């Protein structure tokens, strides 16, 4: 069509199955269906975008009418968007070890109930387990003649135990989500673990806030990489000037032992066979040996900002793609876990994550551990509850003095611009000097 510089269409249909068991009652269980599309057009200036629920694929005049209507919308934009070149190609989706669709929902419900019942304990007043399975069929086409189609299946569960005693109420929470297939079998241990943590936390002390040495477990260290570095390296934030990392490539912000990667191509929970604007996915080294190396980009931010590659555009069904993290991790170092605790000597060991948040423009982040232990003479002693960490992007990373030799990835979801996408974060154990720990405990 005349004057149209570019268009793409991403159409996603699928099905979501869920089961919610609360105190051994099946609260709800069943399937829902969705059909969503997004059409993006570049005409003279910026994007015209149509978000369509219940899209029927069409060609010829009908499709042209949609493109025209997106063009009219694009007419109110002012900033000119230029797209950078990017390689094409789609990765294979890893095969499912067991397809959740081949397991009937009664069996899923019985297995989930087993996990929930494993969290029953005399001090536990509430047990709850959720199963979620999402199947997405994605079809992508663009004005350059690229066409891709793939199917992704993500499934997993959460289990929660709430313990109560002496007017105190605490929770333990475990989760496992996967792209590799049905994962509800033989998981009762996680229910039991959630209960054990909730009960133990009833006796835990409040953490005393202040500056100290901290050992972070792989899950929490992964969230640290995600909040402290990942978001600020997103090309759209760099482009609009709301990241402290803008103009800072080449700057040393951490020790030689620190390398932080985002890689949508590895088979973890944030895997995408191709990005949401049809670009081949590849690994980006955000921090390389302590130096800011690359940003994460889509085609627009690549051409505007540079330093990095496209292939990091992601979207919820029916939503316009944004620059997002996928599988983000701190690379392994050479320290053993024992050496990390020995080197720490006195401090705090923080485990698990209740999430985090960052203000990338100000360069300030906060994230929260599920629980922790005091470290005294290199050994874990008393359990502590409600511990959070905060820091500044440009200075805190220098505090990572040791990285362990074994990395573990944890699945989760990340929110940005009203869209939530599956991600994984990971790291080895790390030792952090001068950690700013928040907690309500006092001497």
């Amino acid at each position: 069509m005349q004057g149209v510089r570019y268009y793409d269409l991403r159409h996603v249909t699928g099905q979501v199955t869920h089961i919610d068991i609360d105190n051994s009652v099946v609260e709800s269980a069943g399937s829902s269906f969705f059909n969503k599309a997004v059409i993006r057009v570049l005409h003279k200036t910026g994007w015209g975008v149509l978000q369509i629920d219940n899209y029927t694929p069409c060609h010829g005049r009908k499709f042209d009418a949609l493109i025209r209507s997106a063009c009219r919308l694009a007419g109110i934009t002012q900033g000119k968007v230029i797209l950078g070149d990017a390689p094409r190609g789609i990765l294979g989706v890893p095969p499912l070890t067991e397809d959740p669709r081949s397991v009937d929902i009664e069996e899923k419900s019985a297995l989930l109930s087993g996990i929930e019942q494993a969290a029953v304990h005399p001090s536990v007043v509430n047990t709850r387990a959720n199963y979620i399975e999402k199947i997405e069929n994605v079809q992508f086409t663009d004005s350059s003649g690229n066409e891709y189609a793939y199917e992704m299946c993500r499934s997993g569960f959460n289990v929660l135990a709430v313990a109560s005693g002496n007017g105190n109420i605490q929770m333990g929470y475990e989760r496992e989500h996967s792209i590799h297939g049905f994962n509800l079998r033989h998981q009762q241990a996680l229910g039991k673990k959630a209960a054990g943590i909730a009960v133990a936390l009833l006796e835990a002390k409040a953490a005393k806030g202040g500056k100290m040495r901290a050992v972070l477990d792989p899950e929490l260290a992964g969230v640290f990489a995600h909040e402290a570095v990942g978001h600020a390296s997103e090309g759209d934030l760099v482009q609009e000037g709301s990241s402290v990392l803008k103009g800072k490539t080449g700057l040393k912000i951490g020790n030689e032992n620190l390398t932080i990667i985002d890689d949508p191509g590895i088979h973890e929970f944030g895997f995408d066979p191709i990005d949401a604007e049809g670009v081949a996915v590849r690994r980006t080294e955000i921090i390389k040996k302590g130096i800011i190396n690359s940003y994460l980009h889509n085609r627009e931010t690549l051409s505007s900002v540079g330093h990095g590659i496209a292939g990091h555009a992601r979207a919820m069904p029916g939503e316009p793609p944004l620059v997002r993290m996928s599988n983000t991790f701190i690379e392994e170092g050479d320290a053993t876990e024992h050496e990390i605790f020995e080197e720490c000597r006195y401090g705090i060991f923080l485990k698990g994550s209740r999430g985090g948040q960052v203000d990338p423009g100000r360069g300030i982040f906060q994230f929260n551990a599920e629980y922790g232990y005091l470290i005294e003479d290199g050994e874990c002693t008393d359990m502590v509850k409600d511990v959070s960490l905060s820091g500044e992007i440009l200075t805190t990373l220098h505090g990572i003095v040791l990285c362990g030799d074994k990395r573990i990835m944890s699945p989760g979801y990340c929110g940005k611009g009203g869209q939530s996408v599956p991600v994984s974060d990971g790291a080895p154990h790390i030792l952090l000097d001068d950690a700013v720990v928040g907690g309500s405990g006092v001497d």
Partner: protein
Amino acid sequence: MRWWVAVAWIDQLIHEAEKTVDEVEVFYVNGISVSAELKQKKVNLATTSKDCGLGIRTIHQGKIGSSATNDPEQWRICLDAAIASGKLATPQEWRGLPAPQSLSRTPLSFDKSLEVEPAGVIDLIEKMLTGAAEHPAEVTSGAASLSTATVTLANSQGVRYTDQHTGVSLSLEAIHNQSTGYEFDHSSFMEKVDPESVGERATFFATESDNGKEIATGEHDILLSPLAYAELLGNVFVPALSGRNVHAGRSRLGQSLGGPVTDSQLTMYDDPLLAKANGSVRWDAEGTPTRRVDFIREGILETFAYDLKTAYRFDKKSTGNAIRGGFGGLPAIGHHNFVVDGKRSRVADDRVVYIHNVVGAHTANPTSGEFSVELSNAFWMEDGQFEIPLRSAMLSGNVFDMHKSISGLSKESRAIGSLVLPSIRINKQRIIGK
């Protein structure tokens, strides 16, 4: 067009469902929106969105089933899925969906003068940028959107309700050196938003927070803005008032009915019929007529919030607090316009740490109430004036305990989502400096 002409298939669906199940409920949403996004000071993306969704709930012998789709033409598949889903659910005490009541048909959160057109969003964006120009901070991003939606609720007891909603929402982000500012506004009514002020406040906070000073670790008197207060209240305190959380043993307020739970000057209630408020509705997501619900009166906990399901199970009455996040989920317990009220006073006369926003409130412990968050746009305030910006610090405490020692509520309130809140002053809270 009369509603039953527009959605004749809903009657057909109900008729079909009644062959198999005791009761059925249909929730149907249809809406459009237009929005524009700023990249610095230029609009770089414009969107129109057509949303459509159908949620079906079936009840048979106390077993509740549900399904959803955004293709209403596929209602038969969706109905079959809902009926199948009901077979798995644990049966419970169920005394029926609500029968129709003669409620006013005049929508409460609908502005008939609001037009969902691109020209309207551009006008809002220009006004925000005009306001933003009053301070030296640079605009980094922003957005404006206009929307309208029709919500239909029908059930096999004969309920046929429709309601219309409109919405306008605005946001702007700004930066000055390494200091950020953010402001937003939203309403069902165009006249209730002030785009110039949104722009001005965003660049004001970015500009004024630059060159922040350190604060010493220790106990300080704080003043939480409605925005900062909403983060802590909404993530921790409000969920503890849900009947479902109470009966599941997940609420710290569960054992406190009839007793003091906050400072005696505080009152908290849900007012679904508040004039020109964002969440105003005459019937809740299950068709129960709404009414004012007083949760806490002068510090005393009087009731929890219930929907039909939880009420029937625990021999209570629905308080009309069923809400739906969208068409896709089941009705759940929530609120419409949650108001915190009480004796108002001049809260900033004495020196206080003013906290405009916090980072990381969703990481608070929702069961125990413990939190520690990073401060955003915090200042030493004297005589109501922003005096010295604070660079970086954490605030730690317990949301429930904090409510027992409220020192004052500001004269003005502000709507944040469906919360209507004053600024609150709390003395002697723990701040951890760097």
